[in-house]
């Protein structure tokens, strides 16, 4: 007994405990009162426990960044925000005349069109990057708006953000000497300057007028034919760091609307306005980088074989990702999530709404192992105005250290004044849900489908281990709280509710951002 652990100094015990994970710390906590006091009083151990409870990991253990107390405080605020699902305070965005929706959304950042005085949108001189201040995103009020000063954009340029890489890519087209010259700019999101790693000072010039910038993934940019009518598509995958074409090929398509880039695949969603007219399919093309002859290897087409799809044959593939309200029932829509490489599909069928999530990384596996093509189907018993969205929570701080964790939420009747303002929450953390239930802020939905949304090793250990739990959480009365001035609303892919308000007395249209 003389050399059993309790006779070690507290300092040593803490050193030992700090090496343990959450589970072991909690087991030690239950052994005796001395350990309990030690663990309860240690900021570092509390931080470790709470971080695990959130399903997060601390990105970097760098003593020069945030002190542990500040990290703990942030985690507590973050947890409290998720437990009560507090809506963030209204953030009014000024000078956004005629703004319909953000240009691009990624992670906790979204890109707003520039302040345009007047209606001339042809010569745009700058864009604004908005980070959403929110406890749910663990973003403080002081990181808010950031203006990227001069981006010589033409009106039809396409802009994409990659907040994780602090990257903004945009494309401009110019007519020079009767020819269309397309320039792809790769800039840093932080400075607005050409990205230091980008090839040729951040500008790639091509003479291919038909190619539109479609998607990005890591170092790769995808260009493909911007066409609604279908035909032969020649996707080109270019590396923005080297300027080289990594893959190029020919794919026969029918009626293409969207294309996404994965590290190994191009996923294009093809099909017509109605399935009755054109068969809708997801086409997966393997990318192969070859030194001499770049090619796109075999492409595979997968039709959606969902029974509900085929029964009703009414599927509208909506191209405007953020423009949800223009999807009248009974239609479906696709929501790609660049951060998680996930495509969500919401379909209405025989009065029920289905949300299907297809992780791009395991797409092939799902298709082959699930004849229905669905990773998970969550039946909605009533129609809602808005579909499923991915809420991605990252990064925690200004990039010096990051926390990551994803949460899936499904909104039901959230914006309907008459409907019960309920939110169906799918959470990866059973602990969080249990706490929310214990506090009375959530009730477990009886008869709801509870299961693992993600399976398979590619999706990461966290999601494989933790089953998702379906709960219902009361939402604030949106229409009551925000007044009747709300003219239209969009739920962006990062979970931000984007409202366009009409303040009649001022005759000014304001855009407000909410984090859900």
């Amino acid at each position, binding site marked *: 007994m003389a050399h059993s*652990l309790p006779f070690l100094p507290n300092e*040593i015990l803490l*050193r030992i405990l*700090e090496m343990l994970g959450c589970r*072991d710390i909690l087991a030690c906590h*239950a052994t005796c009162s001395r*350990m309990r006091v030690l*663990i309860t009083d240690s900021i570092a151990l*509390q931080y470790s426990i709470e971080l695990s409870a959130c399903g997060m990991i601390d990105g970097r253990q760098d003593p020069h960044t945030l002190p542990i107390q500040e990290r703990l405080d942030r985690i507590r605020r973050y947890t409290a925000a998720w437990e009560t699902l507090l809506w963030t305070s209204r953030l009014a965005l000024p000078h956004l005349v005629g703004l319909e929706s953000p240009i691009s959304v990624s992670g906790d950042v979204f890109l707003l069109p520039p302040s345009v005085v007047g209606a001339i949108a042809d010569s745009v001189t700058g864009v604004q990057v908005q980070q959403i201040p929110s406890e749910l995103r663990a973003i403080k009020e002081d990181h808010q708006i950031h203006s990227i000063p001069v981006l010589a954009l033409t009106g039809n340029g396409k802009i994409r953000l990659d907040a994780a890489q602090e990257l903004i890519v945009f494309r401009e087209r110019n007519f020079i000497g009767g020819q269309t010259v397309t320039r792809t700019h790769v800039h840093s999101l932080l400075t607005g300057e050409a990205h230091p790693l980008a090839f040729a000072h951040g500008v790639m010039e091509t003479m291919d007028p038909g190619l539109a910038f479609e998607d990005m993934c890591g170092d790769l940019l995808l260009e493909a034919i911007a066409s609604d009518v279908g035909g032969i598509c020649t996707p080109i995958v270019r590396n923005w760091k080297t300027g080289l074409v990594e893959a190029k090929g020919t794919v026969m398509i029918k009626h293409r609307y969207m294309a996404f880039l994965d590290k190994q695949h191009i996923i294009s969603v093809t099909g017509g306005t109605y399935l009755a007219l054109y068969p809708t399919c997801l086409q997966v093309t393997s990318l192969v980088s070859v030194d001499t002859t770049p090619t796109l290897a075999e492409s595979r087409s997968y039709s959606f074989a969902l029974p509900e799809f085929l029964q009703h044959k009414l599927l509208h593939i909506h191209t405007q990702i953020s423009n949800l309200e223009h999807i009248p029932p009974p239609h479906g829509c696709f929501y790609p999530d660049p951060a998680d490489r996930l495509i969500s599909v919401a379909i209405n069928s025989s009065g029920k709404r289905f949300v299907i999530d297809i992780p791009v990384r395991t797409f092939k596996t799902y298709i082959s192992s699930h004849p229905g093509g669905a990773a998970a189907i969550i039946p909605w018993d009533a129609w809602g105005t808005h579909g499923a969205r991915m809420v991605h929570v990252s990064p925690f701080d200004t990039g010096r250290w990051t926390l990551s964790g994803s949460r899936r939420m499904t909104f039901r009747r959230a914006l309907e004044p008459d409907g019960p303002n309920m939110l169906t929450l799918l959470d990866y953390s059973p602990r969080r849900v249990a706490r929310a239930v214990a506090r009375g802020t959530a009730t477990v939905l009886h008869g709801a489908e509870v299961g693992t949304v993600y399976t398979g090793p590619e999706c990461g250990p966290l999601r494989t281990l933790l089953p998702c739990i379906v709960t219902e959480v009361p939402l604030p009365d949106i229409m009551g709280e925000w007044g009747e001035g709300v003219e239209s609303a969009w739920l962006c892919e990062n979970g931000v509710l984007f409202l366009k308000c009409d303040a009649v007395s001022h005759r000014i249209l304001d855009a407000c951002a909410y984090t859900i």
Partner: protein
Amino acid sequence: MPTIVSVDDSTVPGEGSSRLLLLVSSDNKHIVVEEDIMSRSRFISKQVEGFEATSQRHAILLPFSSFVLNKVIEYCSHYRGYYLLEDDPDAAPPGRSPVREWDQEFLDVDRNMLLRIIKAAHYLEIKSLVGSCARAIADMIRGKTTEEMREILGVENDFTPEEEHSPSSKCTG
């Protein structure tokens, strides 16, 4: 409490950089070791600074057995002349001590010995050794149930029934 006894200067001859120290263990064994080797220990370094200030050298009495002391000296000899970040008093402490393979083999000893070494290392203020021992002990505890942990740690459940079922930490309540 360590006591300092005066020793004859001839016992601890000063020879420039590699002077010798006399360490006395709790079982009264006298161990002569080069000062250089023990400079990793903040405790010894402070003692040596004291010697230099008073120009008087003493034997250093240590409250643990020669068996443990020899093990610590073995550790210090192995890392003689190596820079270990944790032992640098001026460097910011690293978040977690790194895994060193040699340490893992070195600390492949029974539990009691491990506990004695960590106490000695703590007393001597050798942070790198404390870190390695803590890692070894943590490995021993990891994955055990609360009941098994009580057995390993040699503690008794001193909670009242209500206490035992109280929330496991203030954050999870």
